[in-house]
């Protein structure tokens, strides 16, 4: 199944729970996605990576990024990160997949309003969880990810 997403696409996984991160990674791999997955366990380090030392995001110009974003982070909210990505000149076309436990209607609306590309609620039932993430992996393998400007 290595014929999916081009190899150069990097998956940025922002997830504070190490266990969730591991489970997500396992299931994405099971879907045959072999792209590099960069895990971040807090918002600060993720922002530092995404926007670079100058904070402009120019550091990632020319790279194809896909962001997997949890909303409940210890230091900042995922919504804040989503907002900054979608407002950034270089990163705004990078797909952002919100993967979180929150199924609050208002929160979902807000994320889509801010430009989230996909919003997925983590099912508690593991079978459903792994199914959801695997399908997300399959989805990753078929979508086109543009390069950051």
């Amino acid at each position, binding site marked *: 199944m290595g014929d999916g997403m081009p190899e150069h696409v990097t998956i940025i996984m922002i997830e504070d*729970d190490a*266990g*969730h991160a591991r*489970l997500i990674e*396992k299931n994405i791999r099971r879907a045959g996605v072999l792209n590099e997955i960069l895990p971040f366990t807090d918002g600060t380090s993720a922002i530092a990576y995404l926007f670079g030392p100058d904070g402009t995001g120019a550091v990632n110009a020319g790279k194809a990024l896909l962001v997997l974003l949890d909303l*409940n982070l210890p230091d900042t909210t995922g919504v804040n990160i989503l907002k900054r990505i979608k407002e950034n000149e270089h990163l705004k076309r990078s797909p952002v997949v919100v993967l979180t*436990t*929150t199924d*609050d*209607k*208002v929160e979902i609306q807000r994320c889509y309003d801010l430009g989230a590309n996909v919003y997925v609620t*983590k099912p*508690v*039932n*593991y*079978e459903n*969880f*792994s199914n959801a993430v695997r399908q997300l992996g399959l989805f990753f393998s078929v979508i086109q990810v543009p390069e950051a400007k």
Partner: protein
Amino acid sequence: MVSASTAATLPAAPRPLLNQAIVMAAGFAVLIIISVTSVFLVNRARDDGDLVAQTLLLENTLANVQSLLLRAESSQRGFLLTGDSNYVSAFDGTMADLSMALQHVRAGAATSERRRALADRLAVLVQAKQDELRHTITLRRSGDDMGALAVVRTDRGEELTRDITVVVSQMQQAEQALLDERWSASRSSNLWLLVTNLAGVTAIIVIAAVALRLTQRGSDALRKAHREVETSNLVLEQRVAERTADLQEANNEIQSFAYIVSHDLRSPLVNIMGFTSELEALRTDLFDRLARLRERAGEEDASEDEVLDKDFEEAFGFIKASITKMDRLINAILELSRQGRKEFVPTAVNMTEMVEAIAATMAHQLMDRNAKVTVAQIPPLISDRLALEQIFTNLIDNAVKYLRPDVPGLIEISARETVGYVTYLVRDNGRGIDPGDRVRVFELFRRSGPQDRPGEGIGLAHVRTLVRRLGGGITLESELGVGTVFKVTLPRRLVVEGNGGRDA
């Protein structure tokens, strides 16, 4: 502080009123005194005036007596000189006038001893004079001219005239004195009248001023009391508003606490569930590998592996069942917190129709349990339809769930009305609730009686939360083995306060 100042103001209020009554009474008394005195004084002044007039008349009559005497004397003299009888008839006429005048004098002077004596003396003198005059006339008529002249020549007539003049002047003096006396009496009566009236007017003005002042003070006190009541009302309202806000805040805090807790509990649960599944997968791999290794080692007996596998299976079974239960409980808390934060929209709800519709959706369930729902005509409400539906669905569902299997089920919905509130009764003939559990059943995750029915113990907790949020209350009466009545008391009109939290 508020009640103290109010209490201090209120008993003070009757005193100005009492004072006002006293002032009014005093005013009326003064008016009555003035009126009575005035009437009395006016009467006296009129009497005084009459007396003055009488005196003046008497004086006039006395002057008349003197001039009549003069006229009589001149008529006598004329007759003596001429012998013309016309003078005699004139003399007679004058005499008649004179006796009339004398009568007036005697009548007028009758009021005092001295004046009556003078009047009597005057009458005697006048009679004597009259006799003397008539005597000369008689003499002349009989031809005795000399005799007549001789009478005239005596000083007798002159003396009488002088005496009469003296008596008249004495009488006039007496009358003048009387007149002066009566004048001064009349003047003093008038003066008293004036003084009384002036004093009365002054008193009235003073009383009016006092009354005005008292009224003003009274109304000032009233205004002040009114202001104080207003202020204390305001303070009270403010306090109620503050307490309501505090309660609202506490409620919101609990709701958001429930929300956060349930969310944050989910996260580790995902891990527990996920890695348990991963472990299960690992176990399969492990036992496969074990089987292969056993095969390679030539060991035929797999019973040890089977025992291990069973232990694994049991452990996983417990873990998974617990996770599932925990997931359900977390979802229940989440749902409850959502209900608690949901915004209510008051609309007119026909309760009879609503409850009938709920019963209709349960037709299948009711048939299975051989049960029937009867709905009386129950009063409508202005409240949140969705919340009401959830309350009555839960209550009826609950009633159906705990019916006794050996008796045909009967669930009756009726209502009782009070001012501002309606109490809806949901009565069943089910298995009843143990007295010790009548409070517990409303608590989250608590259930009563044999745990032989599916459920998490959420329904009644949910119902109570909703009823309370609608501004009402719920109680129950029950007898084991006979049935249960849930009493839901709700305000006829839901007042929506500020809804806290997000809409979830």
